[in-house]
């Protein structure tokens, strides 16, 4: 028998179990490492980092060693200048657009004068992307070309035999410096000429430059040798702009074999970050030639760090840490879709900033070599092989597939891009220009080519975020996305109205939706409505769809994973669209399927799109005329926008694409801000723009696309979830321009809107929730008189007539919830509103009758017309609807 004290002890013990479970369960895959501007790392992170950090790092003093060797050659290395601001296609704003980085189009680049290749290097000059070197499987290549995005054209650049393959490259602001072996060359695009750089001295024992960075007028190159005692000797050399010789710094002995310094990046404070392996990173301070270790990146219990790359987020230095569960093998196949983890938490600490337009060399640690194969970053269980950094932007590239994602520094989220038009595979030349991503060439692998040959690419792709969109000069660009028609640019007259927030006791207007499977831990049934308002429920336990009530059951022909399948929408031609995640899929990525609801194909999956849905809950699926579009968590100034991806087109029951003619809802704001202001509007789209309403000021904010429904009376219902306060708000935008709102308590979630109102979930029950003022009015004269049983109800005054109606409605009907009726307003002016409610078991009604009374002559008053607004919910127990 357990004693009371035992219970308290068990609770304490169990709290520790929860702590350990949380440690093992912590899903964060992206972590920031604290870096201070000073050379000496401060002790410990400022917060509990999910990945955890070893805190014992200390500054290691280094002896400055400056070689006194001179070199007779005169180097024509130009002083560094800021990148050109005349990049006409590229945004020159210091920060990227807040939310549109993952929305845009890929431009197919015209054929370049270069032969296909991989491992070329590339820099962005502010005007051109210069591609240099590389290999094609049989030869090291020593030519290059420059692509101008303004003219959409290439030009060849002067060859240079001394600029070898180019293991690493930096842009100084006026020249491209290619470092190879123990020397290098500088290319000046203004004159199309090369200048040789001095060679390293004999003191340099490294195996040549394997990485380099440019910072504050100094080029820093790095290399290493391996020692028999399983240590490495790291070398660093710097060349200040204008100098004629390298300054070779004291080597650093480092435990472990580091065949080459894997990656380097210069900071605005003049120091350079050098990553050795996923957990070991050093800071190098060129002016004093000092190395200092940064805090090791250590995984929490149950996790392993497999990669770390440094990048810039919100202008601050950050480490993206890839984690995988201990003991699990590294995935051998690339993810089919790039998707954010459930919580890609980005924590920005430290003040070190990266220079603008910085192109980083890429290196690998996978095979222990220092070649240009890039590091591996695991996100959402998938693999990203490259981090492509420029300015304040970072793009991620999935290994051996052509999938890219972008880190949006404004929201600290990672969003997938559509597939590029070209094929790139491993080791493409890739860099960031402004906000744009340039990708050219790459190693496509050897599977499809003769033995000994390498299949390399000559394709070029340029990602242009929505904010940078401009017409593409001929040859025309190829876009991979887009779906809803562009919203008109001419704003119609806004019928503004002060919104009013109603405070209504919803209890009389909420009805349990019976017959829906109970929620299981982790998932619930899902619901959608057909165009006519019929409710469709996906019952996960039986893998079937129930249409209407009493329900017509449509079993789905193929098994779908319970708890991983959701009903998303009902599309045209009687098809249900569901997102489903295969049981084998561990990433929060799902497929979209279309299931026929009627005819010979009922229950069959007639169309499918694999891996298109992010299931992290941070993006919304929005119905548009073309199909289901993915709107990111943070939206943009158009939601959905022409740049949002069409994840699945509507199809007919044969699987052929079709379009929907139903009206739909968009939200639009000013292009220069994502902050809510009076210019934001809710727009009813019906062919073109039918009507718009301002977003009420009471709406504090929202993330992706609010839940919405177009009602038959031309009004639009939207549910806003305040991301800050956690409250919800239900708004109905009416054709007359008025807006009605109510606040919805945090204890319930609005899961569906339709013409009747909302369906909500309070943690255990689904309820249909229909406030009279939010319901579509229905002519109720016939039903009311039938309900009253007195077709020709008359009275000698309006008040007497209303009183008779109320009495009639109150007649007991044997239900446990006796009918109740009351007059809401005074009937003296010939109008009256009667609030009416009754119920039996799971059936019931709650509605307002709005009556227009008229005098028929000789003092006799009759009902001229009646409108019913509210809900009649008919359950299994009988016919109780009026």
């Amino acid at each position, binding site marked *: *028998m*357990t*004693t*009371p004290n*035992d*219970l*308290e002890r*068990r*609770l*304490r*013990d*169990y*709290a520790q*179990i*929860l*702590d350990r*479970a*949380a440690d*093992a*369960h*912590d*899903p*964060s895959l992206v972590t920031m490492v604290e870096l201070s501007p000073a050379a000496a790392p401060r002790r410990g992170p*400022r*917060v*509990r980092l*999910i990945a955890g950090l070893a805190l014992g790092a200390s500054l290691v003093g280094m002896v400055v060693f400056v070689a006194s060797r001179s070199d007779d050659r005169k180097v024509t290395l130009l002083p560094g200048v800021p990148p050109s601001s005349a990049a006409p296609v590229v945004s020159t704003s210091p920060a990227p657009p807040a939310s549109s980085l993952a929305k845009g189009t890929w431009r197919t680049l015209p054929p370049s004068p270069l032969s296909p290749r991989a491992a070329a290097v590339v820099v962005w000059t502010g005007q051109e992307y210069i591609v240099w070197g590389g290999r094609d499987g049989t030869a090291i290549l020593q030519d290059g070309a420059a692509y101008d995005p303004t003219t959409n054209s290439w030009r060849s650049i002067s060859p240079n035999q001394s600029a070898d393959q180019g293991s690493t490259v930096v842009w100084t602001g006026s020249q491209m410096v290619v470092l190879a072996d123990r020397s290098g060359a500088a290319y000046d695009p203004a004159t199309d000429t090369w200048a040789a750089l001095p060679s390293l001295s004999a003191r340099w024992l490294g195996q040549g430059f394997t990485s380099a960075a440019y910072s504050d007028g100094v080029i820093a190159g790095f290399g290493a040798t391996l020692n028999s005692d399983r240590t490495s000797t790291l070398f660093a050399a710097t060349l200040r702009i204008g100098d004629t010789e390298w300054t070779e710094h004291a080597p650093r002995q480092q435990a472990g074999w580091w065949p080459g310094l894997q990656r380097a990046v210069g900071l605005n404070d003049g120091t350079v970050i050098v990553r050795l392996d996923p957990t070991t990173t050093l800071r190098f301070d060129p002016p004093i030639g000092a190395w200092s270790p940064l805090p090791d990146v250590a995984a929490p219990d149950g996790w392993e760090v497999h990669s770390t790359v440094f990048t810039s987020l919100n202008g601050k230095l950050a480490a993206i840490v890839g984690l995988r569960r201990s003991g699990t093998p590294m995935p051998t196949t690339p993810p089919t879709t790039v998707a954010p983890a*459930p*919580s890609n*938490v*980005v*924590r*920005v*600490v430290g003040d070190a900033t990266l220079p603008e337009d910085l192109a980083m060399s890429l290196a690998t640690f996978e095979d222990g070599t220092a070649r240009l194969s890039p590091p591996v970053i695991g996100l959402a269980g998938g693999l990203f092989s490259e981090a492509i950094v420029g300015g304040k932007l970072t793009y991620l590239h999935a290994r051996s597939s052509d999938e890219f994602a972008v880190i949006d520094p404004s929201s*600290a989220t990672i969003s997938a891009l559509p597939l590029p038009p070209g094929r790139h595979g491993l080791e493409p030349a890739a860099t960031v220009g402004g906000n744009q991503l340039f990708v050219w060439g790459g190693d496509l692998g050897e599977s499809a080519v003769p033995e000994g040959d390498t299949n390399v690419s000559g394709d070029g792709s340029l990602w242009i975020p929505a904010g940078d969109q401009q017409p593409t000069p001929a040859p025309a660009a190829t876009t991979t996305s887009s779906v809803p028609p562009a919203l008109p640019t001419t704003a119609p007259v806004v019928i503004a109205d002060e919104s009013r927030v109603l405070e209504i006791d919803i209890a009389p207007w909420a009805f349990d939706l019976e017959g829906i499977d109970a*929620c*299981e*831990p*982790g*998932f*619930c049934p899902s619901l959608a409505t057909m165009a006519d308002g019929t409710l469709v429920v996906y019952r996960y336990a039986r893998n079937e769809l129930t249409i209407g009530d009493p329900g017509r059951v449509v079993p789905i022909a193929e098994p779908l994973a319970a708890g991983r399948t*959701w009903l998303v929408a009902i599309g045209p031609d009687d098809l249900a669209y569901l997102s489903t995640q295969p049981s084998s899929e561990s990433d929060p990525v799902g497929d979209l399927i279309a299931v026929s609801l009627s005819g010979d194909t009922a229950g069959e999956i007639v169309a499918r799109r694999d891996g298109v849905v992010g299931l*992290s*809950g*941070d993006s919304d699926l929005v119905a548009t005329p073309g199909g289901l579009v993915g709107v990111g968590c943070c939206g943009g100034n158009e939601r959905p926008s022409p740049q949002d991806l069409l994840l699945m087109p509507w199809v007919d029951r044969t699987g052929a694409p079709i379009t929907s003619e139903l009206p739909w809802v968009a939200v639009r704001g000013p292009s220069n801000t994502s902050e809510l202001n009076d210019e934001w509007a809710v727009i009813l789209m019906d062919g073109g723009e039918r009507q718009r309403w301002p977003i009420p000021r009471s709406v504090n904010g929202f*993330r992706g696309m609010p839940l919405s429904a177009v009602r038959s009376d031309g009004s639009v219902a939207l549910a806003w*979830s*305040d*991301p*800050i*306060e*956690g409250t919800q708000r239900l708004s109905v935008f009416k054709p007359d321009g008025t807006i009605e709102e109510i606040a919805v308590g*945090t204890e319930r*979630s609005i*899961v569906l809107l339709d013409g009747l109102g909302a369906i909500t*979930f309070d*943690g*255990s029950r689904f309820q249909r929730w229909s406030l009279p003022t939010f319901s579509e009015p229905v002519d109720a004269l016939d039903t009311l008189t039938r309900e009253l049983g007195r077709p020709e109800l008359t009275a000698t005054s309006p008040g007497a007539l209303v009183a008779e109606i109320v009495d009639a409605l109150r007649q007991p009907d044997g239900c446990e919830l006796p009918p109740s009726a009351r007059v809401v307003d005074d009937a003296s002016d010939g109008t009256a509103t009667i609030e009416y409610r009754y119920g039996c078991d799971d059936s019931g009604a709650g509605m307002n009758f709005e009556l227009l009374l008229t005098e028929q002559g000789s003092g006799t008053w009759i009902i001229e017309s009646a409108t019913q607004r509210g809900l009649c919910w008919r359950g299994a127990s009988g016919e109780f609807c009026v």
Partner: protein
Amino acid sequence: MTSSEDALATTDAKLRRALVARYGPDVGCEAHAAAMAYAWEHRARLAGMTNPVGYLWRVAQTSVRRQRRWDRHPVLPPERPAAPADDLGVPRDLAPALARLKPDVRVAVLMVHGHDWSYAEVAELLGVPVSTVRNHVHRGLTRLRRTLEVPS
């Protein structure tokens, strides 16, 4: 480290425990991560708040709702692997009994008796009076004793 960052670090640890108690490790950790991401972005704003834990608690709940994790009952790890029934003389597993408590009650019980929070701290988190927390704890323990057949 600034005082505001100190405070946020403290908030960080407290918030995760509370969210894990509320939603279980899976959803709780996700909600915690989302809330702390928000916290870092808005740490200056949070620094001026008198109750940042309670504020972030609400932010986290919003995150959970967005992820459509509507389940009331959290998935809690077992107290013991494969806990047998008590008819063999082994105490019933605590986890299912905790999972059946109302969320705020469970949070109050686990925070007060598991993590040694004060009633005031829990009240601040949940945004309720201290007396409510006291009632939560009392009711929660009573129900746990009944479920686990522990004498009062």
